[in-house]
């Protein structure tokens, strides 16, 4: 009887010790991490996405004049285009590359979110929970910092080269371009809400939203487009001799 009571007490103490141990040393469960990672594509087909505000682009007189002088490949003779992405095989810049009909991938790490585009194997990095560098030079894909707002990745970016077009239609911008993106996942859809500010190019901030579909197969194919490729295309399809030696 005494032995039986001792056994029960011992078992009780052991159980209490185990429970205390488990409860006392366990770290609090981490907050669920928002997730926008994966491979995405615009479902609009080969033409890619469009970036058109409902009320039209609020262009300043300078921007309206500049856009009027541009010759996009879609609406003018290809031989005369002023599109820098074709004329010089320049990188698309941002966000134009995001309208391209090829895939892109978002990769999340603790300190950066990487944005990888299939087209031209271009990429940008979004520094998480950091301030903009005060002396960053203007670049094709800007200086982007990000933070989480609930399930939404908020990306604030500046420092874009003024020579790129915002869209294939020739919407211009200056080096003062400031873009805020709110990126969130809605099931198998990625919703990107853009707000653009640029006092030199736009009379007021304007917004547009673009949606992308998740792609099961994350494989991306190398597709690096060079000035040789462009000159070769012009020579073969337009009969325009190349002014410089090109790779055959």
């Amino acid at each position, binding site marked *: 009887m005494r032995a039986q009571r001792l056994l029960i007490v011992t078992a009780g103490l052991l159980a209490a010790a185990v429970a205390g141990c488990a409860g006392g040393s366990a770290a609090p469960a981490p907050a669920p991490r928002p997730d926008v990672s994966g491979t995405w594509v615009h479902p609009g087909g080969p033409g890619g996405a469009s970036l058109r505000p409902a009320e039209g682009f609020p262009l300043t007189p300078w921007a309206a004049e500049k856009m009027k002088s541009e010759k996009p*490949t*879609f609406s003018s003779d290809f031989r005369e285009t002023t599109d820098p992405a074709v004329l010089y095989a320049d990188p698309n810049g941002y966000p134009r590359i995001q309208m*391209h009909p090829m895939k892109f991938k978002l990769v999340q790490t603790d300190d950066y979110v990487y944005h990888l585009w299939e087209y031209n194997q271009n990429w940008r990095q979004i520094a998480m929970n950091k301030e903009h560098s005060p002396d960053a030079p203007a670049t094709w894909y800007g200086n982007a910092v990000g933070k989480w707002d609930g399930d939404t990745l908020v990306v604030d970016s500046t420092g874009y080269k003024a020579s790129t077009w915002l869209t294939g239609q020739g919407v211009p911008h200056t080096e003062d371009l400031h873009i805020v993106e709110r990126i969130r996942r809605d099931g198998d859809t990625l919703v990107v809400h853009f707000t653009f500010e640029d006092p030199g190019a736009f009379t007021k901030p304007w917004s547009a939203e673009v949606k992308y579909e998740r792609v099961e197969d994350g494989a991306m194919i190398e597709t690096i487009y060079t000035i040789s*490729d462009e000159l070769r295309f012009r020579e073969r*399809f*337009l009969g325009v001799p190349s002014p410089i030696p090109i790779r055959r």
Partner: protein
Amino acid sequence: MRSQVLLILAGVVGLLLLSTSALAHHGAASLYDVSKETTVKVTITEFVWTNPHVEVGIASVDDKRARWLLEVGSPPNIANRGWTSKSLKVGDVVTVTFNPGLRGTRIGRLLKVVLPDGKELKA
């Protein structure tokens, strides 16, 4: 009258959007007569897997002097539609449908190809 003008405008915008969606590198209508389709049985003379557009050289089976250079989409885009860099080879006899070049130029935009085994590849 006003509604007619609006309808015409809507049509023009629609056509512009259609031609825009054809190719990312350039608008189809800037080089090709998108209102015409030519279908012909041809021999493949070259197949180049390159950027900005995959290139297909063809010669008519019936008239070897009738040759065209056709452009297809970019490699990743057509890979999504079942193409590989080995889909065609020189000497293959296939049936192609394409938009011919403007002003009679011997170029074209490939729309589809029917392979010797009857398989169809959309461009």
